[in-house]
């Protein structure tokens, strides 16, 4: 009986052992299957399916990773665009336990995030992952399907997330513009501080000024007794407008000043600003001509009076 008892004990022991082993094995498998899920949950991204659907989730995750690879390869063919690595496709406010349909960016290839370049977008990262056995180009249909699915999912919540996202993008683009303008202002400031700011005299400008002086002398000598001195001046300016096309056009470098930077940042298009500055410059040229003309006229008048007083 002892042997029987022994065998029964052995049988129970072996069954216990095997049950324990079995349980341990199950636990081990459960841990292995759910490790990635757990990681995603920790960092706040969705687990794809339940624990029982771990095998189904695996290809989904693989697919998402392949999407990343494909998009990175496509993006590398395109010219570089400034992109911001922000989770702009989230439809819910971020929280560690919230789930989203987006694949997790915290994947093995996301070590490129440590680079500070703003062009290091998720699409640019990528190296083939060891988990995915299928070759990436074969999944382009899945990419299209995924995109459509995302678009479809995004559509109902567009009203909610669209405006904050657009607002954020606007803010970031304006911040970029502000930084660029700041750099331009800083580079132009030393040249202005260096000395007196001199205007550039192109041939047409010189022609205008000389023409104004000559006309003022001519008008003082012969014309002023008969009509107003401003009539010939206006005629001269009209003539200049017609003659301007016969002179070589000098491209004037648009200087970035605090005013233009403020106007740009306030949303006024650059073209409007440029046109306004151009108009302002032309008005300034006409004003310079008028001042020189009037000054020469008065100077001639005073010199003639002086000569007139000296002559007996």
């Amino acid at each position, binding site marked *: 009986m002892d042997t029987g008892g022994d065998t029964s004990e052995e049988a129970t022991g072996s069954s216990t052992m095997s049950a324990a082993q079995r349980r341990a094995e199950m636990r081990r498998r459960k841990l292995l299957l759910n490790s990635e899920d757990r990681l995603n949950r920790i960092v706040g991204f969705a687990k794809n399916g339940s624990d029982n659907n771990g095998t189904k989730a695996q290809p989904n995750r693989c697919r998402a990773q392949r999407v990343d690879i494909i998009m990175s390869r496509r993006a590398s063919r395109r010219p570089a665009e400034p992109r911001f690595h922000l989770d702009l496709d989230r439809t819910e406010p971020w929280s560690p336990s919230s789930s989203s349909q987006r694949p997790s960016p915290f994947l093995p290839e996301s070590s490129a995030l440590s680079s500070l370049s703003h062009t290091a977008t998720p699409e640019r990262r990528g190296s083939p992952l060891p988990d995915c056995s299928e070759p990436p180009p074969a999944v382009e249909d899945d990419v299209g399907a995924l995109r459509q699915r995302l678009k479809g999912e995004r559509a109902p919540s567009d009203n909610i997330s669209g405006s904050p996202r657009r607002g954020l993008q606007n803010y970031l683009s304006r911040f970029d513009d502000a930084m660029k303008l700041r750099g331009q202002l800083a580079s132009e400031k030393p040249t202005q501080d260096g000395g*007196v700011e001199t205007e550039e005299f192109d041939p047409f400008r010189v022609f205008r000024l000389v023409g104004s002086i000559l006309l003022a002398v001519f008008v003082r000598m012969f014309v002023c007794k008969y009509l*107003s001195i401003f009539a010939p001046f206006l005629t001269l300016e009209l003539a200049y407008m017609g003659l301007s096309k016969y002179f070589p056009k000098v491209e004037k470098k648009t200087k970035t000043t605090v005013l233009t930077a403020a106007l740009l940042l306030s949303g006024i298009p650059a073209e409007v600003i440029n046109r306004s500055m151009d108009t302002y410059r032309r008005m300034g040229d006409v004003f310079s001509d008028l001042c020189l003309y009037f*000054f020469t006229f008065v100077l001639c008048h005073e010199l003639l009076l002086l000569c007139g007083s000296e002559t007996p």
Partner: protein
Amino acid sequence: MAAGYAWFLVLGSVFLCNLMKTFLSTLSSLLSKMIQKDAEQEMEMRTEIQGMKMEQSSISMMDEFAKYARLERKINKTTDKLKTHVKSRTAQQAKVKWVVNIIFYIAQAALMVSLIWKYYSDPVTVVPSRWIAPVERLVAFPTGVPGGVGITCWLVVCNKVVTLGFNVFNQRSQP
């Protein structure tokens, strides 16, 4: 009525102001050099650093590391002292420049105000009013004399012309 040479006086004042503005930076640097007393100390420090660097280049780091390191420390210490000195000198220069600019602009404003005060009711020159029609009122402001050229109009014209003249001169003098 108008004094004979009022127009010339205003023109001369504007010319003088613009001339002073051109030489402002030179004036401020001259003043700061006069005020600054320890410019030689800076020169000595620079010479010392240069000498030490030459000495350091002749020493082999492997063979005489201790000497090399000692020299390196001395160079660093003197460089830091020089940087502090240069910083304070630059700050003093900026302060002097700022003061000179402020004084100049106050003086210029006072001169302009005094000219306007003097020729408020007298035109600087008079021409027949039909010559400057239809803007004779604007040109005569604030005198109200028909055909007269008011101080404000003349100041603006002179300022513009003198600035143009200086720009032409500067452009020609630049290589």
